[in-house]
């Protein structure tokens, strides 16, 4: 469960001191359970509200609905105008495109930074790290004018193409750190066998860096799926809307009438992220903990 916890076969006196006091343990567990309840309660409340009749959502504070109303889901799904299935399809196109783009372009760049010496490498690497700290808002308007001139507005291209150009420096950095941990002897052996750098990248580095690629895939998926600002800016017509944009339609329309449907679709909207989280929980947490540390 917890891979970060070091194996403790032999306990030092201090550790014995720490683990001996049973009442403190109870206290700590109580505190942690308390925090966990506060952390998860809003999510449970959303889930329960999604199944309640509208009249009950704000009048009956408990988590258990007195009567279930699954119709919230079907009503929310058909929405107004476009069905939610369209938004989900659009979101899938955008996220899958972004994932493929990030995995390819970031791994190529990371391989170059991790394995080659070339003129100005330090400067380029520094620039790459600099873009990590650059707020997207700072380039949003000129990027918009570029895509506007390319007549890409209201298409998925402004959301996908940049990912093929390795704009998410975070993942380059993560992959550079990972490639550095792969023994160079493997590259050299392949080189002796006459492999060119691309073959080394393709046949040796890429298969070995699968953990880093999986971390990149999960985070790109979740962050792109949830990225509201860029979708709001670039997608203008309802038929191109993604899930987050589809959800905001409920905000405009919900004048006290369909809260249940809104909560139902909010719950559904979180589902892909939740599933990702449940499957990859350990990897997500570790990917995060290590990426920042090794620098």
């Amino acid at each position, binding site marked *: 469960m917890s891979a970060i916890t070091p194996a403790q076969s032999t306990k030092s006196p201090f550790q014995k001191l720490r683990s001996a006091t049973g009442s403190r343990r109870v206290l700590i567990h109580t505190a942690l359970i308390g925090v966990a309840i506060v952390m998860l309660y809003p999510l449970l409340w959303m889930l329960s509200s999604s199944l309640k009749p509208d009249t009950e959502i704000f009048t009956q504070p408990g988590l258990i609905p007195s009567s279930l109303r699954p119709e919230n889901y079907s009503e929310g799904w058909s929405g107004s105008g476009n069905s939610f299935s369209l938004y989900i399809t659009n979101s899938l196109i955008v996220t899958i495109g972004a994932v493929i783009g990030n995995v390819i372009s970031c791994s190529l760049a990371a391989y170059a930074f991790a394995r080659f010496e070339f003129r100005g490498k330090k400067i380029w690497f520094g620039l790459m790290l600099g873009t990590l700290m650059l707020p997207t808002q700072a380039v949003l308007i000129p990027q918009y004018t570029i895509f506007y001139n390319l007549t890409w507005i209201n298409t998925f291209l402004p959301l996908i193409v940049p990912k093929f150009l390795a704009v998410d420096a975070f993942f380059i950095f993560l992959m550079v750190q990972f490639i550095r941990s792969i023994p160079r002897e493997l590259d050299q052996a392949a080189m002796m066998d006459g492999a060119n750098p691309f073959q080394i990248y393709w046949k040796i580095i890429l298969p070995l860096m699968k953990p880093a690629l999986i971390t990149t895939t999960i985070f790109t998926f979740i962050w792109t799926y949830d990225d509201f600002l860029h979708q709001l800016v670039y997608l203008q017509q309802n038929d191109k809307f993604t899930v*987050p944009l589809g959800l905001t339609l409920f905000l405009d329309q919900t004048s006290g009438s369909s809260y249940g449907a809104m909560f139902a679709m909010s719950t559904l909207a979180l589902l892909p992220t939740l599933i990702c989280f449940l499957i990859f929980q350990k990897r997500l947490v570790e990917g995060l903990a290590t990426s920042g540390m090794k620098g």
Partner: protein
Amino acid sequence: MTTAKTDEVVKEQAAPATPSDQRERDRMRRRLARRRGGGWWPYAFLAPWFVGLFGLTIYPMLDSLYLSFTNFDLLTPAQWVGMDNYSKMFADDPVFWDSVHATLLYVVVSVPLKLALALGVAMLLNRDLRGIGLYRAAFYLPSLLGGAVAIAIVWRQVFGGDGLFNDFLAWFGIKGQDWISSPDTALYTLILLAVWQFGTPMVIFLAGLKQLPKDVFEAAAIDGATPVTRFFRITLPLLTPIVFFNVVLQIIDAFKTFTPAFVISNGSGGPLNSTMLYSLYLYKKGFTDLEMGYASALAWVLFLVIAGFTAVNFIASRYWVHYDD
């Protein structure tokens, strides 16, 4: 495909070195050295990144700088207006100052609270407890979901007039109010949302705590140092590089906050501009009002402020961050 060549190499190594073998090996060594440099290869691997760097970062930054001195509405060519945008911003735009006020308050309150909570919980989790993985997962989940519109929608309802938070207060006999539509409290609901998402720095703190040398704590405990002393005299100083890393990251993150402010105020930044975070104002100016020149000026100010904060952080870090080496 490469078996024939491999055989050759093996044969060469097995045979006694002759002058021609020696030459062959030298050639191989030179080839290896060249490969390390790689000739044009690294540039080929970096090509997509170069296009992105110049086309989507450096050129846009310069373009944005130019646009910030113009009036530009996207549809007609930009008109040069000199410093007008900047002087209007600082001297003649109360909403700009509202957004600066809201953003600074948001950053200054939410970042320390979030980091304190993250460190506190990480300390609690830093022991061999049963179910530690479950706790970690539960505490990290809100951070992962945090950027989603759905969460912001839930938050809006939780702190609304008849929302969950007021039900909670009612248990204690406190009469609530509509926290979202009161200009005094709306921003604090956003701050609470940010603090609720303490999972990311928590995980990083936890990884840092795991790496602290155990023997120092043992020695201190045997010498009779209290847990509080141990925390302030040992844990915190040893952890400063990670505190620093988290501070830098969280400040940049806080400055960029957009989604919850947009959703909670329905895109208006209200009530009375109290939730007009800077990113939201930038968006409104650029994409609702189509004042793209003005929005570019806003973007440059944001960029300079974040760069300034980060620089100050790095300079100040010399005085409080301790590195081993």
